[in-house]
């Protein structure tokens, strides 16, 4: 980091979007500096925790099976967002995902040949060999080889604007404050999910019980600074990818392993031992993203999934062992629930279960009758001890409130003010496409496509 140098492109952030932008800008001949708030060991933001990338493809291609066309991808997106998306930008991302893989490979990405195991997503998603951290390691190596300057422990906490343009950034690095000047800025600093204060302003006290699945460094500070400059925003602060995860997960950075995969196999009750939603509504991966919100709306933001010995072992093994008991009463004690209430809930549920042929691989015909809320599939009586429970809390993956951008990744400002050297990529602008809901692998798709666009445009602007 050289305070006397005027860099062509300054990149704030160190995740997928940031590195894609940095590499592209450097390739276009720009001098590039990347400022990453995290120490080297934790570099890579949320991207470090990812596993795959959703790509469009018209025919079986390297690691992808079958085909996944633009329209199907678009339909899937439309379904989850219920229309909260910008069709032009979304289709642009979808189309470009089909061209990303060779570029990614050329810069250190490795993919895993189509996958065995419990997840079967190799039609729509390309899996990173070794996951997101391995991907980021590859990108960082490529970036270093290309002569991109990278600073760790370098948190940007002020952006200076002059004459209606970005001018320089104030960085706190190893306790010292320094100023970095650059011709253009790419904001790739993630969402604001690690900022509990901000979450609280949107969710109230409930936010105190939220767990953050990813990096503690995505505090939304850069987003706030851009908003203060009058950047237009998209989506709203309550929208996020929020899943139900094990309540015993750490406050930050628990990543992928804290998920609980058996909600659809049992029943889920709240603090009052009452059920509150149809656990068997649809396949787990599809419904996975709604449960965080459901739990967030329950008293104390806590819920418990309860299964019996029949269901045990029929799902991805979670990292925390289940709470186990020989009777429902004992289980209620262990969970500090009212034993009578729990017994009543289970008894009512058991009485409503209609016989059917259980099959977890299809929407089977095991369901309840005359029960509120119903359990429409995989409804088996909970009657064979030992009983098991997994406590759930809302786990925030990332927030959607972000800056509005155009197809050149330029940040759009109020009153048509021109601020022609500020670009954004990744979570900080993902809300343009993903205003609501979630589609696995879309986070990396948006970050990769917009990162590359932002890098290219920023380099071009710097040379103009």
């Amino acid at each position, binding site marked *: 980091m050289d305070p006397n140098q005027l860099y062509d492109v300054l990149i704030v952030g160190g995740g997928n979007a940031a590195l894609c932008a940095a590499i592209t800008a450097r390739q276009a001949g720009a001098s590039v500096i990347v400022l990453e708030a995290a120490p080297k*060991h*934790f570099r890579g933001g949320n991207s*470090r*925790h990812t*596993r795959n990338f959703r790509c469009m493809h018209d025919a079986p291609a390297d690691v992808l099976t079958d085909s996944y066309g633009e329209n199907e991808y678009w339909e899937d997106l439309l379904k989850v967002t219920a229309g909260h998306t910008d069709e032009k930008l979304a289709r642009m991302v979808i189309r470009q995902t089909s061209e990303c893989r060779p570029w990614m490979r050329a810069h250190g990405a*490795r993919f*895993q*040949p189509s*996958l*065995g*195991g*419990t*997840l079967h997503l190799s039609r729509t998603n390309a*899996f*990173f*060999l*070794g*996951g*997101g*951290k*391995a991907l980021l*390691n590859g990108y960082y*190596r490529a970036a270093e080889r290309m002569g991109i300057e990278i600073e760790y422990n370098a948190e940007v906490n002020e952006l200076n604007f002059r004459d209606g343009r970005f001018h320089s950034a104030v960085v706190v690095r190893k306790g010292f404050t320094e100023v970095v000047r650059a011709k253009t800025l790419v904001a790739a600093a993630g969402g604001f999910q690690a900022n509990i204060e901000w979450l609280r302003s949107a969710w109230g006290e409930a936010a105190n019980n939220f767990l953050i699945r990813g990096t503690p460094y995505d505090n939304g500070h850069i987003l706030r600074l851009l908003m203060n400059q009058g950047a237009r925003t998209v989506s709203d602060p309550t929208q996020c990818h929020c899943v139900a995860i094990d309540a015993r997960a*750490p406050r930050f*950075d628990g*990543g*992928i*392993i804290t*998920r609980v995969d058996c909600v659809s196999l049992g029943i889920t009750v709240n603090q009052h031992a009452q059920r509150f939603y149809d656990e068997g509504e649809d396949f787990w991966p599809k419904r996975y993203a709604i449960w965080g919100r459901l739990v967030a709306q329950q008293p104390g933001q806590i819920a418990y999934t309860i299964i019996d010995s*029949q*269901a*045990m*072992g*029929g*799902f*991805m*093994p*979670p*990292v925390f*062992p289940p709470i186990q008991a020989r009777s429902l009463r004992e289980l209620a004690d262990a969970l500090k629930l009212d034993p009578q209430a729990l017994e009543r809930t289970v008894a009512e549920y058991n009485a409503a279960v209609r016989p059917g042929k*259980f*099959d*977890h*691989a299809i929407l089977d015909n095991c369901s309840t009758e005359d029960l509120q809320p119903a359990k429409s599939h995989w409804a*088996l009586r909970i009657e064979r001890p030992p009983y098991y429970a997994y406590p759930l809390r809302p786990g925030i993956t990332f927030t959607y409130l972000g800056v509005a951008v155009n197809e050149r990744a330029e940040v759009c400002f109020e009153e048509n003010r021109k601020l022609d050297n500020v670009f954004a990529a990744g979570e900080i602008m993902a809300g343009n496409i993903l205003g609501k809901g979630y589609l696995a692998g879309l986070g990396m798709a948006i970050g990769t496509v917009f990162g590359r666009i932002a890098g290219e445009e920023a380099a071009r602007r710097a040379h103009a």
Partner: protein
Amino acid sequence: MRICNACRYCEGFCAVFPAMERRMEFGEKDLLYLANLCHDCGECYYSCQYAPPHEFAVHIPQTMAEIRRQTYSEYAWPGALKGLFAHNGLALALGALIAPLLFMTYLYAVAAPGVFFGAHAVADGAFYRVMPHGAMIAVFLLLGIGVAVAFAAGLWRFWRDLGEPLATLFDGKAMQQAIVDAMTLRYLDGGGEGCAYPDEVPSTARRTFHHLTFYGFLFCFAATSVAAVYHNLLGWQAPYALLSVPVVFGTIGGIGLLIGPVGLMWLKIARDPETQDRKQSGMDTTFLAMLFLTSLTGFLLLILRESSAMGVVLAIHLGIVAGLFITMPYGKFVHAIYRSAALVLNALEKRRPVKLPVGEI
């Protein structure tokens, strides 16, 4: 292990992770198996978002190396020699040095000084004038049998503790698969571009040097076998001509054994200290040094066999080979035994139907 099984990001790297997914619980025998299936390539450490300093502090290569070290010592036979693995470096170095000294003393005592220090023509039986053929055979046959018994005993106990009946160890197909996996170091390629050894950058260096070492060893072994056939069936006596089969094989193998161990040693020194199990380096380095010295003294013998130094060099060479043999069951060589067995089990398991309870309730 629980963390990995819930995560599974590393499943494309090697056989360990898919094997993990076939089990829900991790008892001692599972750990024993997985640890010996691991080739210590380091990929999963660099890729792990839970690696230290993360609070979960997942460090698979290190954990696996520790279990392997225990495996090696626990299954050593005879049991009294278990301790050798604990103080491996020193014990092995001593063992390795004592053998040549014994040979020197013995030969000096037996052979007439004129023979021992005399110059020899490359004539039939020149070596045996220094050390009688019968004695050579006797010593190495005894050593060979001892070593084979030690290996077999270790293997048998290891296999039993994996919870497998003896019969499955000899499953033809699984053995074939395991041999192919072992010969090609299939799981040392980090999923394509080489592994993260000695550091984060994928590289095929370790695989290359290991191949040189391994095939070097095989060629030398083949050279000795051919020589045995020459001597015992055809009656041709060593030393053999430069272009004879045993000498050519020995030379090829010897070159592999000069470059391979040095390369592996260099990688070991260059290796990221974060991923090293330092307690093992004694046994690793001794074994590599022995291989290297075997080859080096072999070449010296080839060069000096017509000079008056031949007797001394032969004694040293034979001594080092003997040292290599003696220390084999108590040093790094055993990894070949246990890893191959783990690969056999891996091949077997892949064929067995997976018991995934979904849909069966």
